[in-house]
């Protein structure tokens, strides 16, 4: 019991205690504790891992973990996918608060600073019990709230990447004086158009020559700043954090979405500039977390406000009956999200720990620009949950919980700004979205068991998660200019439900560690955007429909310590998805990653130094659904090396990475640019210099 409470406390008060030393992990008692912590398949990595694996974006840095995939939008933006589920089908949480941007967009990245994170916990599997709607595929939980241990400490980092001429700088300062502490983080990255190992791109039999093998207009920049002020006492901890993330990046100029286009802009004049079309996002977060430990009862409260402002600019071009738009602002979205959370943890008897709480979230979204895709909306949800953990012994516990999330969504009407000729020569301003109000009453539950006899950790979980249909899925009715297709929502969609069975088998031997995480997942009503044979306003009509979907897969990790200093690591993942009924019966789901993995050999030449050779591979993906293209299998050879030099309290860190050493030309099936035939970056050398003091 006390152990369980301690574990909860450790989550908030711990230093970077994870024993993640190099690119590979060293398993030990702490790893066992991490595994025992949840009934679902889970992986934790610390700051060291993120620094050593830094690959431009946070998600790219995490993509070597089996079960998590990076869906890249060029070289500087990506979003996460857990077992092939992304966008509104997974949750990214920062210090326990659901990160809310415009997750529905295939070309939208993530507004989080990769170098300001202390610890990442990936939970694979249904997690609505903890996070409500959307946590169907799992949760990527990011923590930025470690306590400073000294009155003044910090770190600074400098990184360079050759492929997109990226330069990144970050500085982190923090300090603690008795009960008070502060943390400050500043970071910025600047990158140019990225380089691909090809002279031209073929798309719809149209050949696009590339200037100096660079992908026109994929340059970008990103800036981050955050400040945390906190108090930590015997029983009370309170921290308040303000953070802002600002980024701007260009889209490949010759093809945007499904359309090939050329313009009069001289894109080849500079590799560094960001021309049209481009996207810019500002994300502001204010978050206050309170943690009160009264006697045996633990009380936690959060209040957060997030503001997400996105603008997508492109050259105004008339299309169909839409005349030449007045400006470059194709779409803008302005979102506010208020979150309030309150939770209580009460140890009941010797073995039982009861946890309950309420999460309230309010979202307010407003659109702008000449391209309509998402109506204005407000959403209010109030999640009430009760969880119980019953420990039979130190080695065996069961965990069960129930959650109810009443949700209200109000969608606003939208009418075109230009007339469309109707019947009998009359022109009408078409109404694209109808005002509507929806109410949902979704329940979610989960039952799991963890058994850790000796060197085994065996886990099983059965759970139901849900996702409330997004306003885009219910209210879209217009041309998606970014993807050049007509998308139509379905007003009466039901909440998407997902039932999932997860197993996790872990063997933690002296020199051999094996983890196998298989799962079976069933959606009775997966919300699927179906490409139909019909046309609407000159573009192919895509309609939101619901179909039952069965998915299964597994992740495997094998670590073998061949010698004291030599480690072999094998990781793999496999996923199969099938639509069981509906218009695409028998087909897979879009962006399903192919089987793949990596094999790495690490040699530690000293306590703080390593070299690693890594072979990354993926199979062909021929299991496709329109409008996808089949993708051939690929492999890359990568080399990593790192060394830390310690002098008193100061540590100097040096990291070298060489990705795609053989400059292989390959396509990532899940990348945004895959559908227009753009290969992944070629050889990329990166250098990382860090100082911790």
């Amino acid at each position, binding site marked *: 019991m006390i152990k369980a409470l301690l574990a909860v406390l450790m989550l908030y008060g711990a230093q970077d205690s994870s024993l993640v030393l190099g690119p590979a992990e060293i398993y030990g008692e702490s790893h066992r504790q991490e595994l025992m912590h949840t009934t679902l398949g889970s992986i934790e990595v610390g700051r060291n891992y993120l620094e050593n694996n830094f690959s431009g974006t946070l998600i790219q840095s995490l993509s070597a973990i089996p079960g998590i995939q990076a869906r890249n939008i060029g070289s500087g933006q990506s979003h996460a996918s857990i077992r092939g589920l992304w966008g509104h089908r997974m949750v990214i949480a920062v210090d326990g608060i659901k990160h809310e941007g415009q997750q529905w967009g295939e070309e939208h990245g993530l507004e989080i600073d990769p170098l300001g994170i202390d610890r990442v916990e990936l939970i694979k599997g249904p997690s609505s019990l903890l996070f409500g709607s959307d946590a169907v595929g799992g949760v990527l939980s990011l923590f930025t709230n470690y306590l400073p241990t000294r009155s003044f400490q910090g770190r600074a980092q400098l990184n360079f990447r050759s492929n997109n001429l990226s330069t990144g700088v970050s500085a982190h300062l923090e300090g603690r004086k008795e009960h008070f502490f502060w943390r400050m983080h500043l970071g910025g990255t600047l990158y140019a158009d990225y380089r691909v190992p090809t002279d031209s791109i073929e798309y*719809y*039999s*149209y050949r696009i020559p590339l200037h100096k093998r660079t992908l026109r207009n994929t340059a970008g920049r990103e800036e981050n700043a955050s400040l945390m002020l906190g108090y930590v006492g015997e029983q009370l901890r309170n921290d308040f954090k303000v953070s802002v993330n600002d980024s701007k990046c260009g889209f490949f100029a010759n093809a945007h979405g*499904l*359309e*090939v*286009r*050329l*313009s*009069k802009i001289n894109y080849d004049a500079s590799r560094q500039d960001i021309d049209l079309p481009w996207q810019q996002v500002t994300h502001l977060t204010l978050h206050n977390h309170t943690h009160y430990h009264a006697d045996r009862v633990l009380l936690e409260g959060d209040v957060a406000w997030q503001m997400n402002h996105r603008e997508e600019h492109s*050259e105004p*071009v*008339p*299309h*169909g*009956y839409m005349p*030449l738009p007045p400006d470059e602002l194709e779409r803008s979205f302005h979102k506010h999200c208020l979150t309030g959370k309150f939770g209580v943890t009460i140890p009941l008897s010797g073995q039982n720990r009861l946890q309950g709480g309420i999460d309230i979230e309010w979202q307010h979204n407003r659109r702008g620009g000449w391209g309509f895709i998402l109506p204005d909306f407000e959403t209010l949800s109030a999640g009430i949950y009760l969880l119980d953990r019953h420990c039979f012994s130190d080695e065996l516990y069961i965990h069960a919980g129930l959650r109810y999330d009443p949700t209200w969504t109000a969608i606003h009407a939208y009418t075109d700004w230009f007339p469309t000729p109707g019947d009998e020569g009359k022109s009408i301003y078409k109404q694209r979205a109808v005002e509507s109000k929806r109410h949902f009453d979704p329940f979610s539950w989960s039952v799991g068991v963890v058994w850790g006899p000796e060197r085994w950790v065996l886990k099983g979980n059965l759970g139901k998660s849900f996702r409330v249909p997004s306003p885009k899925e219910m209210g879209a009715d217009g041309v998606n200019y970014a993807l050049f297709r007509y998308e139509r929502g379905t007003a009466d969609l039901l909440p998407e439900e997902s039932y999932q*069975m997860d*197993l996790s088998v872990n063997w933690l031997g002296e020199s051999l560690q094996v983890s196998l995480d*298989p799962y*079976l997942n069933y959606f009775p009503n997966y919300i699927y955007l*179906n*490409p*139909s*044979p*019909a*046309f*609407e*306003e*000159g*573009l*192919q009509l895509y309609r939101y429909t619901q179909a039952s979907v*069965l998915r*299964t897969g597994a992740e495997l990790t094998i670590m073998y310590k061949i010698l004291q200093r030599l480690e072999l690591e094998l990781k793999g993942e496999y996923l*199969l998805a*099938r639509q069981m009924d509906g*218009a*695409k019966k*028998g*087909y897979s789901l879009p962006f399903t990653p192919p089987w793949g993995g990596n094999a790495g050999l690490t040699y530690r030449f000293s306590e703080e130094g390593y070299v690693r050779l890594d072979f990354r591979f993926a199979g062909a993906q*021929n299991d*496709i659904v*329109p*409008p996808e293209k*089949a993708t051939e299998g690929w492999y890359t050879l990568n080399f990593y090396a790192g060394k830390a030099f310690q002098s008193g309290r100061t540590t100097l860190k040096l990291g070298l990475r060489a990705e795609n050493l053989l400059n292989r030309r390959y396509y990532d099936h899940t990348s945004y640019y895959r559908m227009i035939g753009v290969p992944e970056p070629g050889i990329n050398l990166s250098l990382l210099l860090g100082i911790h003091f």
Partner: protein
Amino acid sequence: MKQLFYIFISFILLYACTPDGKDLQAPEILSAGEQTCPLNCQEFTPGGLIEFAYLFRDNVELGNFNIEIHSNSDHHTHGTEAGECEHEHEEEHTGTPVNPWVFNRDYPIPSGQTQYKAQVRIPIPEEVDEGEYHFMIRVTDAAGWQSIRSVAIYLSSSSHSL
């Protein structure tokens, strides 16, 4: 535990190894021989007629097709074929559109067809801007695959062709 394992295995075997009748090929837009119209860079006259003729083919079943014509006075290019064409009087017809011709219509293909010769007579209005236009041909199949072909055409009252 063992039973669960067998369920997993049988599911994987069932779906990974069974050949199914899924359509994984997009339809094709092919030339209709001598009659093929419009051809890239072909010139037409306002008030005249475009006698559209192309051949569509699919491995399973064709869906619908769409013809969309829009002005390219700003010389943006979609191009599968559409590219720069050289025309007389080009300079005077480039710039801000005044009354650009917009045409956008969907056409069904009788169900069950794997090959279809599409023929449509498209009258060109009298009072429209002259200059370059994009003639977009889009065809779908029953499974939802789409193919696009873009052809550049030119409207000119002094046109000597046709």
